[in-house]
Structure formats: structure tokens, C-alpha cells
């Protein structure tokens, strides 16, 4: 069959040819735009929270007012029994509640010590930590103001009382991500996944196509064409790498200009990281493309890698919390570890080479080893298939 020139092909045929390049280029950008927008608000605010004030004294109302003033909470006072509260928590209508018992104000007035109960739905880690932290702060502040009154009544000057109460306080600073914005924490990891998945969506398929054509050529012992085929695969992988790199840089710029993501780290290091990762992921593409015979199955298999790879790469669950053996295995079988963690360090911490060098060298070793394994597997697989004489067409 003679091949038509590209310009004379129909729209659908043209689209099918350029589809892999469009995927590699546009997927990271589109998903960066989408998820940047999703996590744009940065902080969790307006969490449905109930207050059940059985006391309704001046003291309890001042505590309730503090909850209303805190933007983290979206207060409702619709519940009038603890059973109703528990049912609302069960249904996730609210994520927490404060119960102020009867006699709360009176107990404080008479220095008998009052008790309030804070209920927090612990199933959502993000929300429960926020709620607990802010509720504790509000009650600590309320407690401190009462303590000061007690101390002043006991012949301390207001200054002495204030100093005593404020002693032993903690001042907490979050470095590199001061507001603990979720977008700042998660986006480097997600960007790594977008780059990985878009590359894997196309590169292993190119390997399969090459494997198929080489197998046919081996039957004809046409070594010249085999070399040409391998060269064509290399060109394709390089073209994907180039587009992926442009897409990666554009995605970082989108994050910075559209969503206020910090843009630190030198461009050279950001590119070096991408360069090493592309070699790694190209090596894995050769391995995957060698194992599978059908393009559609590769597409299906690679889609499964998204969730396990991000959860095991040390991004969300840090390396120091893994067993040593597990960490070694993770770093040996998949390269995302060498990419997303240093990328986060570069963008958030303005890391220099000394910080990311272990990841860079690790990534280079990973790529070199897996590239050799991939090429070896590829060569053996083609020979095996020739022996089996299996039709490989989809």
C-alpha cells in the first residue's frame, strides 16, 4: 500500500497521526488548568459545624461568637439534641460540633471549672485537623482570658497576669508553605503524574509499532530497514520528550501566573530534572511496550499506574515513614520518586543542586539500568515472537 502525503490525508487521518503529539503536549496543560482552578481557593473554609449551646449564658455566647467570627466554620445552631448532632455527623451534614452544657457560665463564675465537648468527624484527615486546631485555639483563648481575670483578682497586676498566662506559648511557623495551601503541596506531584501519564499514553505504543515492523523485517533479514525503524522510534521518543518538556514549562508558568504558585529554583535545574525523568520514563516505556503486544492493552495498563505510583513515590507518604526495604523497592521499580520530590523542593524551597543531587544521580542510574533492561528485553522479545510466528495485529 502506498502512503499518501500528510497534506492529502483527510481530517480524521491527520488527527490520528498527530494525536500522540497532541496528548503529550496538551494533557499536562489542560489538567494543570483544571486542578489549579479546583484547588485555587487554597484554604478550607466554611466547614459545616454545629453549636449546641445548652447554657446560653454571657460566657457561652462569647465563646459561640468566637466560632462565628472564625472563617473556618460555617456555624449552624439547628440541632437541639445530641442524637440529632450524631445523626448529622453520621450523614456528613456537619463535620464537627461543640456542645456547651448547662451551667457552663455559672461554673466559670464560681471557679468550679467548666467543660465543653468538641466532636470532630475524624474520617476526613484534612477537615478534622483544621477543625480541631481552630476549636482548640478558640477555647484556649477563652480560657486564657478567664485565667487573667482570676489572676488579677488574686492581687496580680494586669501585666503580671498577662505575662503568666501567655508564658510557655508556642509560636508556630510553617516554612516554604506558610499558609499550608493544599495546592502548593499537591501540584508538583500532580504535575509529575500528568507528565508521566501523557508520555506513557503514547511512547509504549510507538515501541509496539516498532516491534511489529522489526519482526516483519527480521523475517526478511532486512537489516537496513531495521536500523531505520529503530532510528524512527528514537526520533519519535525524542519528539515526545521535547513536547513534554515544553508542556511542563508552560504548566509551571500557568501555575505561577494563574494560581500564584511560587516559582523558585533555577531554570537549569528544573530542566535537568525533566531531562532525567524523560530518560527514565522512556526506559519504562520500552519495557512496557516490549511486554505488551497490543496498543490498546498498553493504554489500559498504563492508566492503572496513576494512583499507585503517586501513593508509593514518597510524595504523600514520606520515605522516612516507609520501611527501608519498601523504599528501596519503590525507588528501583518506578522513577516518579526521582522527579516529584525534587520538583517540589525546587519550586517551593528554591532548592539548589546540593538538595536535589541525590535524586538526579538516582534518576540517572535508574534510567541507565532500565534502559539496558528494556533494550535487552526488546531484542529478546522480537526474536521470540519471530520463533513463535504469532500474528501481532490488533
Amino acid at each position: 500500500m502506498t502512503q499518501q502525503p500528510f497534506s492529502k490525508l483527510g481530517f480524521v487521518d491527520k488527527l490520528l497521526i498527530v494525536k500522540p503529539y497532541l496528548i503529550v503536549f496538551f494533557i499536562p496543560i489542560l489538567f494543570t488548568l483544571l486542578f489549579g482552578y479546583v484547588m485555587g481557593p487554597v484554604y478550607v473554609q466554611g466547614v459545616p459545624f454545629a453549636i449546641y449551646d445548652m447554657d446560653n449564658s454571657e460566657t457561652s455566647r462569647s465563646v459561640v461568637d468566637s466560632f462565628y467570627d472564625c472563617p473556618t466554620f460555617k456555624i449552624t445552631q439547628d440541632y437541639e439534641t445530641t442524637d440529632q448532632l450524631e445523626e448529622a455527623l453520621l450523614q456528613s451534614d456537619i463535620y464537627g460540633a461543640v456542645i456547651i452544657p448547662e451551667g457552663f457560665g455559672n461554673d466559670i463564675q464560681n471557679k468550679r471549672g467548666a467543660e465543653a465537648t468538641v466532636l470532630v468527624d475524624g474520617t476526613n484527615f484534612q477537615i478534622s485537623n483544621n477543625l480541631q486546631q481552630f476549636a482548640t485555639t478558640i477555647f484556649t483563648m477563652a480560657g486564657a482570658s478567664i485565667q487573667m481575670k482570676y489572676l488579677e483578682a488574686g492581687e496580680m497586676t494586669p501585666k503580671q497576669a498577662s505575662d503568666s498566662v501567655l508564658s510557655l506559648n508556642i509560636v508556630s511557623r510553617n516554612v516554604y508553605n506558610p499558609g499550608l495551601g493544599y495546592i502548593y503541596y499537591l501540584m508538583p506531584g500532580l504535575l509529575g503524574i500528568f507528565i508521566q501519564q501523557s508520555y506513557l499514553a503514547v511512547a509504549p505504543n510507538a515501541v509496539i509499532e516498532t516491534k511489529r515492523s522489526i519482526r516483519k523485517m527480521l523475517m526478511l533479514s532486512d537489516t537496513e530497514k531495521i536500523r531505520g525503524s529503530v532510528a524512527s522510534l528514537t526520533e519519535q521518543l525524542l519528539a515526545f520528550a521535547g513536547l513534554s518538556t515544553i508542556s511542563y514549562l508552560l504548566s509551571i508558568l500557568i501555575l505561577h501566573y494563574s494560581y500564584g504558585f511560587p516559582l523558585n529554583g533555577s531554570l537549569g535545574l528544573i530542566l535537568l530534572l525533566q531531562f532525567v525523568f524523560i530518560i527514565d520514563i522512556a526506559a519504562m516505556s520500552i519495557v512496557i511496550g516490549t511486554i505488551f503486544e497490543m496498543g490498546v492493552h498498553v493504554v489500559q495498563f498504563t492508566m492503572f499506574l496513576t494512583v499507585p505510583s503517586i501513593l508509593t513515590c514518597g510524595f504523600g507518604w514520606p520515605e522516612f515513614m516507609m520501611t527501608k526495604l519498601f523504599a528501596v523497592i519503590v525507588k528501583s521499580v518506578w522513577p516518579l520518586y526521582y522527579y516529584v520530590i525534587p520538583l517540589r523542593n525546587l519550586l517551593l524551597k528554591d532548592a539548589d543542586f546540593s538538595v536535589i543531587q541525590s535524586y538526579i544521580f538516582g534518576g540517572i542510574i535508574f534510567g541507565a539500568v532500565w534502559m539496558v533492561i528494556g533494550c535487552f528485553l526488546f531484542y529478546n522479545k522480537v526474536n521470540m515472537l519471530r520463533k513463535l510466528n504469532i500474528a501481532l495485529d490488533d
Partner: protein
Amino acid sequence: MRDRLNDVLLSFIFFKTRHPNLVMSLLMFLIIPVASSLILGYEMRTDVASRIPTVVINNDNSDFSRTFLDYVNESETFDIISYVDNYEEAEDMMFHDKAFAAVVIPENFYSDLQNGKSPVILTLFDGAQMSVVTYSKNAMTEILMTLKAAYMMNIFEGKQSVVPEQVMHQVMPITTVTRLLYSPTRSLRNFLLPGMLAGIVQVALAISGAEAGFKKQKTRIPFYMHSLPILHWSIVGTASMLLTLGVQWWLFGMPHRGDMPGFVIFTFLYSLTIVGLGYCIGSIFPDRAFCSQASCILVLPTTILGGYTWPLIAMPPAIQAVARCLPFTYYGDTVRNVFFKPLQFHHMADEMFFMVKFFVIELVLLALIKLWKQGLHGSRVTALNGSAGADTKAAGVGTAENDKTEVMQS
């Protein structure tokens, strides 16, 4: 030895080539989800952030500050890995990911405390490692509040001459009893895994739907027959989901407090919606691989868009509206809740009703797709009849057969 290995490999390749769909189904519904559940369960078996590498600058070096640091080190949460002399060294360790938290005790801390000068302990957390920070901040606050209570007792007893029976009430005028319901350990594993594992299985559901839809794309069958592959893969998907989540329960001690029969039905309904979605996609596009890709691209982002990790209430209103139309929004939330909350059947009723509505809409959509495809097919038949009817009759070949071939090629 090498020949034997080659033989085994050859047999495997031969089997894989003969039965590609069986191998892929096993891979998608059994091997990948169950292996992921085992691997992730093993990885996260410590549940929460513990032994967080912590660096200390103790400029005070009094007994009191050492006692405080002992408390910190003895807690499960922190592991003091180094004592350094200045702030820069501590920051450098955090910069190089050697420490994720730092405690700075100022000079003359204890003497200032005694003289009522309110000294302050500074704690630093690496905000880039948020999953660690959110947990460690609460733990550090708890340690300090305990110590502060002891200190305030001394003040009240010593300087205020309050009798010991009353001192506690004045030190802590408001006691807050915090009850972390359902997951008291604030387990990161419990927070992440149920939904993430469901996210892995939903990829299998979407792909199997797309594959089934693609296979039936060119066959003319009564409409109700399309429901058979959807049902088939939904049952397989339900079994896979239960097995994958069951691994967490059986091997890693994850509780399941909700109503299990209700959850099984809910999982089946959810599987129907995702397989149905894949089936619709598979019925539209002529490229098999693209059908799989498109269905996965539709379902994969829902693990985040559905508010599973980043809460729905924190998203922009437009995204919240979209998220409320996604099956995973309801399933992700329920799958976590059913493990940790004593959910009854009626608690899942609204979510189940949503799944039913979603599936009915998919069926209507599928019917429209089929009508549209039939329309395309009909117009092609007419065109072919008009142009080549006479020739084909002369050649003794039925036009319908030709149409079929043409449509297949297209």
C-alpha cells in the same frame, strides 16, 4: 536453565496472545487492584505520621527545657535527630529534607519564665510536607499544653495561694473534651486508601465498559441486549471492588462498621454507572484505544474532583456543581464512611438513588447514540445503494454485506 526459562516465557507469550482479553481482565480486575491494596496497605501500615525527624536548638539548657524536650522525644510523633547551635543549621537541615520539624528554645527561657517574662518556644514545620505538618502541629500543641498546665498550677499554688483542690479549675477554667469520632487515630491510611483503591477499580470498570461498548458498536442487536455486557462487567467490578477493599479489612485491620449488604448493593449500582459510562464512550468512537483512553480520562480525575482528598466545600462553586454530578463524589465519600461510621442502609439511600438516576440517564444517552449510529449506517447504505447497487447485484454480492464491511472499515 536458560532454555527452560525461554520455554516458560514462550508458553506465557503464546497464552497471552491467544487469550489477550482474559489476561487483561485478570490483570485489571484481580491482579492490579489486589496487588495495589496489598502494597499500599503494607506501605501505610503505621497509619499516622510517626517518628518525624526533628531538630532542636536548645539555647536555654535548663532542667525545665530538657524535660520539655524529653516529652517531645518520648512521644510517638517526634524523633529528635539532632541538636544544633543556631537557627541557620536547623533551617539547613529542613532545607535538605533531613528534618521536617524544628524546636527553638530561647536563651534564658526558664529564668524568664520564673520572672514572669512570658518567653516563647518557636516551632518550625516544613510546609512542603503537608501530610506531616498537619499531624505534627496538633501533637506539639498537645505536649505543650500539658506542660503549660503543670506550670500554671505552680503559679496558682505558689503566688496565688489557691488550695490544691481548686487549682485545677483555675488553671484550666474551660476543659475541652475533644472526641475524634469514627477514626480517633487521625489515620492517614484510613483517610486515603478506601477511596484511592476504589479509584483504581473504577479505571477497570470504565475500561471494561468501553471495550464492551466498542465490541457491540457495529453489531445490530435489540437495545436491551446492550444491558447484558454492562451487567456482566458490573458484577465482575463489584466483586473486584469488594475483594480489593476486603484485603484492607482482612490483612491490615481496617474496620468496617457500616451496613455491608447495603454497601454491596451500592457498589453494584456504582459499578453500573461507571461501566455504563465506559459503554457509552465505547459506542461512539471508532478507535478502540481512544475509547479506553477517553473513558479513563473521564473517570480518573474524579478521585480529586469528587472531593475525596481536597474537600468539596473548599472548591469553587462551579466545580462543586460539576462534582455533584459525578458518581465518585458519592461513592468515595460513602466508601470511607462505610468503613468508619455505623452507616445503615437508609443513610446510603440518597446516594443509591443518585446512582439509579445516573444510570437511567446513561441508558437514554446510549439509546440516542445507537439511533444516531443507525442513522449514519442508514445514510451510508442509501449512498452505497445509489452508487453501486447495480454492480454489486451483478456480482452476486449482497449490499448489506458490503455495507457491513464498509462500516467496519470506517
